[in-house]
C-alpha cells in the first residue's frame, strides 16, 4: 500500500499533466476517459497517461489517494484537478487552458 502511494506520487510529481484513465490516449476503454483525453489534445499540451486497467494496484490506490471513487482523474503540477465532469466544466468556462499553459511553461523554464 505504501509502495503504491509512492509510485503514484512519483508519477504525479514527475509529470506536469497526468491522466489516470482506462486504456490509453489512442485506445481509451471508457467514454469518460476518451472525453478527457480529447480535451487535453484540443488544448495541445503535452500530457502523460496511466492506464489503470493495466495495474489493479494503481486502479485502487488512486481512488484512495485523492478520496475520489472514479476514473479518470487529472493531476496538474502535482495537484488533483478533478474527474471528467470537472475537467469539462473548467474547459468550457475557459479556466483549464491557463492552468495547462502555465504548467507547460513551468516545465519549459526548468
Amino acid at each position, binding site marked *: 500500500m505504501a509502495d503504491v502511494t509512492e509510485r503514484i506520487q512519483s508519477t504525479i510529481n514527475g509529470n506536469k499533466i497526468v491522466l489516470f484513465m482506462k486504456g490509453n490516449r489512442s485506445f481509451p476503454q471508457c467514454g*469518460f476517459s476518451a472525453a478527457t483525453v480529447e480535451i487535453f489534445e484540443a488544448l495541445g499540451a503535452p500530457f502523460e497517461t496511466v492506464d489503470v486497467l493495466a495495474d489493479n494496484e494503481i486502479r485502487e490506490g488512486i*481512488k484512495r489517494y485523492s*478520496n*475520489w*471513487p*472514479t476514473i479518470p482523474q487529472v493531476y496538474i503540477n502535482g495537484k*488533483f*484537478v*478533478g*474527474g*471528467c*465532469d*470537472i475537467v469539462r*466544466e*473548467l474547459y468550457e468556462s475557459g479556466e483549464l487552458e491557463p492552468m495547462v499553459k502555465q504548467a507547460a511553461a513551468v516545465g519549459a523554464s526548468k
Partner: protein
Amino acid sequence: MDASEIEQMIAGGIPGAQVEVRDYTGGGDHFEAVVVSETFEGKSLVERHQAVYNALGDAMRARVHALTLKTLTPAQHANRR
C-alpha cells in the same frame, strides 16, 4: 439501483439539497445528477463532488458505474434558468 434511490441517498447526505437524478441508459448503472445546495457556497468543484460521493458511500464504489455530476449553489442554479 434506480434514480430515486440515488436521489434519496444524496439528499440524505447533504441536508437541504435539491437533487435531480436521471438514469440516462435505463440500465440502472449510468446516472446523471444535478445537485443544488447552499453548502456548496465557497467550496471547490472537487469538494462539492466529494460531498456527493460521500453521501453515496459504498453504493458509488460497488453499484454505480457512472455518475455525471453537476454541482451548483442556489445562485448558480438561478442563473442557469
